[in-house]
């Protein structure tokens, strides 16, 4: 299907119907990962390392196995195959399966507190707990390193003796640096030398957790012939299937993964933690095994995103034209390589049309839980530095902060610092909308300040599959391979209904398991509505073609003589014959006579994802004596391409913005002197609560992506990027102090106000 040029013809797309899975979710019927049980299910639990870094000398599980009710214990040495270091394109980003296997279950060393060492399956939770206490693990405790700069320093404890850094000359000695990346355009140093004004700053962020409310949960059942059922909440049933197969060396066809409803992911459920353990335990015990993480385990042992340190330099002419810019950043990867340092560098200056720019960074391992993706991985971190520096630059130039950004805004034809040239993008429209929004010019009171910041995310396409089936009565079933986290079933049904010309309520979408639908990449990277939507649209179009053929057969005319309009076959013109329109249901009723059931499945690798841009305006009031920051007003403007279901698009923006506000103000990973996480609960890992926030106004700018039939760009990633700097810039405006380190918690703000520097 080509791009729909005229949006005013749309009947379903752009409306706000109730989601099809809604009633299940407001009545408590929806089945999340921990809600299913099977007859004879055992409880599985994970024994985790109390040490930040230690060699595993021995594991003796004999006492645990002797405890009545204990059915299996698994360890890496005893039950997991040792697999080679294989960097493979799995899911969305490259994955090293050896590292993943070692993260799921430590083999020779534990690399962080909370690292899984063994797993137990028992008839009750209490027996599993008792069994864990009976497993005798002998550790040789090693020195550890938590912080990124300390991990890069000479003499730092080394996590992986065999780590060979990429993207840089071999250091000739063991290192914790896994990778160096650099992106260059023009000559950044020369550009900075031309500047009338230069700002430079060092900025720091801490690790923050995705904070989904549903802990990881899985139930797995393995039969003696190897056939395996997995029911789990994740961002990708196919991801689980592939990773379990790799880690446990199983045939993919023997693994069927059913996606449970998922209680939030935000990138944190794009890899496996419990699934291979549950399968290994079930295989050994011969019974289904259910495993559910505690909140403490979620914080200690599942991925946060990186913290990092960076230096940002931006130079500009007096008129605001940026002449040169650099960022040097080092990101924590956690215990295994893989921080989002590349996208952090690529996104850093992507909002701007710059001729001379350099972004470079290091991926650094340390004794923390391995990081996982979190909404626009890497981008919020570098954006915090860059957009804070942009604010400083505007101040130095005496320019309006939005005007400075308008002056340098990326547009169609801008060559991005990371290489490619932008096609039609909506950043200028976003900035215009922000500037003309009443919020930008509203008055402020004492101790109040306003900040603005922007953000960019690529958005992605990739593998997606969808099926559209016409039922006997003319209703429609849609199956897709994308787990629905934020309402995507509604979007799939809406797009199918639009193409087929039937009411939304006549289309019922489900998320298929791995045996019911073709391979589909994970729900993440803001790809589902774009890529799986494209597959759904194409499948629906094939069905329309078939419906036209069937109508032609019934009318006994040529298929070319049939058009499809508003859910009915109609003769294409006067020459086709004088037939009354034939509704879809009438064609469906005769499907048997005209060639059999009607349906189609489309599997694609979706291309043409459209980049997204946002600009957020934030007002704060700062209690100058206590450093408490109150968010008074918040407006998030974003180019969304075309909003299929505007309510869920707004919801993505509002939710992303609030996650960013939490990151800015209070969320952080704290470690004690033994390298153990000190705040592994929602009491002291402080995500925003309802009373912390005002309404979040989402302003949708629609600059359609013409590579999608309905103009969709991804929307879920961009909104978490601007808040960090938007809040920091507002705090600067309210207090006169520039905060360089996240979170901007009250003690830090008070100290900054008192010392005059943050």
């Amino acid at each position: 299907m080509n791009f729909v040029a005229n949006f005013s013809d749309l009947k379903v797309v752009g409306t706000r119907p109730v989601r099809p899975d809604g009633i299940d979710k407001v009545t408590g019927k929806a089945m999340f990962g921990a809600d299913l049980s099977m007859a004879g299910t055992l409880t599985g639990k994970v024994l985790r390392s109390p040490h930040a870094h230690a060699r595993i000398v021995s594991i003796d599980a004999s006492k645990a196995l002797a405890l009545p009710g204990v059915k299996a214990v698994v360890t890496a040495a005893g039950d997991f195959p040792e697999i080679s270091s294989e960097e493979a394109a799995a899911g969305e980003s490259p994955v090293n399966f050896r590292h993943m296997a070692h993260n799921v279950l430590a083999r020779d060393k534990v690399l962080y507190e909370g690292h899984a060492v063994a797993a137990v399956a028992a008839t009750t939770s209490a027996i599993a707990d008792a069994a864990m206490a009976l497993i005798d693990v002998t550790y040789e405790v090693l020195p550890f390193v938590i912080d990124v700069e300390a991990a890069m320093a000479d003499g730092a404890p080394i996590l992986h003796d065999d780590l060979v850094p990429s993207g840089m000359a071999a250091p000739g000695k063991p290192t914790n640096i896994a990778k160096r990346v650099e992106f260059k355009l023009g000559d950044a140093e020369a550009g900075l030398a031309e500047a009338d004004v230069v700002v430079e700053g060092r900025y720091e962020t801490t690790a923050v957790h995705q904070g989904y409310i549903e802990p990881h949960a899985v139930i797995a059942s393995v039969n003696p012939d190897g056939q395996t059922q997995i029911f789990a909440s994740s961002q990708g049933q196919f991801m689980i299937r592939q990773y379990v197969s790799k880690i446990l060396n199983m045939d993919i066809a023997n693994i069927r993964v059913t996606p449970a409803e998922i209680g939030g992911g935000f990138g944190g459920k794009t890899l496996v933690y419990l699934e291979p353990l549950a399968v290994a335990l079930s295989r050994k015990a011969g019974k289904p095994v259910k495993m559910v993480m505690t909140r403490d385990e979620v914080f200690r042992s599942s991925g946060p995103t990186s913290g990092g340190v960076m230096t940002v330099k931006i130079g500009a002419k007096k008129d605001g034209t940026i002449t040169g810019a650099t960022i040097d950043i080092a990101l924590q990867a956690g215990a295994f390589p893989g921080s989002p340092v590349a996208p952090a560098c690529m996104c850093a200056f992507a909002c701007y049309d710059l001729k001379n720019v350099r972004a470079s960074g290091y991926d650094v391992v340390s004794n923390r839980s391995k990081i996982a993706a979190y909404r626009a991985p890497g981008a919020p971190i570098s954006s915090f530095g860059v957009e804070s520096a942009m604010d400083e630059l505007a101040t130095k130039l005496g320019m309006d902060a939005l005007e400075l950004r308008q002056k340098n805004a990326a547009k169609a034809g801008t060559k991005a610092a990371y290489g490619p040239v932008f096609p039609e993008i909506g950043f200028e429209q976003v900035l215009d909308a922000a500037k003309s929004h009443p919020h930008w010019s509203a008055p402020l009171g004492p101790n109040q300040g306003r900040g603005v910041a922007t953000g960019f995310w690529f958005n992605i396409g990739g593998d997606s599959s969808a099926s559209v089936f016409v039922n006997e009565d003319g209703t429609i079933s849609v199956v897709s391979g994308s787990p629905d986290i934020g309402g995507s079933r509604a979007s799939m049904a809406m797009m199918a209904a639009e193409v087929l010309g039937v009411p939304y309520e006549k289309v019922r979408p489900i998320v298929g398991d791995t045996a019911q639908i073709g391979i589909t990449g994970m729900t993440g990277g803001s790809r589902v509505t774009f890529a799986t939507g494209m597959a759904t649209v194409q499948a629906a179009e094939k069905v329309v073609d078939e419906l036209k053929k069937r109508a032609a057969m019934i009318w006994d005319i040529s298929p070319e003589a049939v058009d499809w309009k508003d859910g009915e076959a109609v003769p294409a013109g006067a020459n086709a014959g004088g037939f009354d329109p034939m509704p879809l249901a009438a064609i469906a009723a005769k499907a048997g006579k005209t060639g059999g059931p009607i349906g189609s499945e489309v599997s694609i690798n979706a291309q043409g994802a459209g980049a997204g841009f946002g600009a957020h305006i934030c007002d704060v009031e700062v209690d100058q004596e206590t450093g408490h920051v109150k968010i008074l007003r918040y407006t998030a403007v974003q180019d969304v391409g075309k909003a299929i279901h505007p309510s869920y698009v707004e919801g993505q923006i509002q939710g992303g913005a609030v996650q960013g506000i939490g990151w800015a103000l209070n969320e952080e990973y704290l470690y004690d002197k033994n390298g153990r996480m000190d705040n592994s609960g929602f009491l002291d890992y402080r995500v925003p609560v309802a009373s912390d926030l005002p309404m979040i106004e989402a302003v949708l700018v629609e600059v359609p992506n013409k590579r999608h039939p309905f103009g969709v760009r991804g929307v879920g990633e961009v909104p978490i990027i601007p808040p960090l700097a938007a809040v920091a810039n507002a705090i600067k405006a309210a207090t006169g102090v520039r905060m360089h380190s996240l979170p901007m918690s009250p003690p830090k703000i008070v100290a900054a106000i008192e010392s005059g520097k943050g």
Partner: protein
Amino acid sequence: MSKIHVTTTVNGEPAEFLCEVQDSLLDVLRDQLHLTGSKEGCGSGDCGACSITLDGRLVCSCLVLGVEAEGKTIGTIEGLANGDELHPLQRKFLEHAALQCGFCTPGLLVATKALLDANPNPTETEARYWLAGNLCRCTGYDKIIRAVMDAAAEMRGEHA
């Protein structure tokens, strides 16, 4: 090992179960009574996903022992709708798209119902503070608060 026998009332129906002393009421609801609408997000009273009412009072079921339910009246998300008729709050949550993943939704609905029982005309600030113990990571709370305020207005009969 003998378990403790508990007789209670859940969503207006008599219910009995056997439990260990350390079993939380949330464990019992989910594992014994198969009422899995109440969710466990933290197990420490910090997220509100397991919100229920106990003798009419809003509590976290993860912070109540199963044995304490003896002789009490329990209300869960499964009892919010009146048969096949959704409670106005459930309807408004759907209309306002006040849920994304839906995991925190049962707890939020139970907590909001308790709010409106106690205060049919809350201000936005009152609603936000009452619901501060119900974490939602998806929505940023905006649409939830709008749904709550709209449902409250409708329940007061202020809608045309």
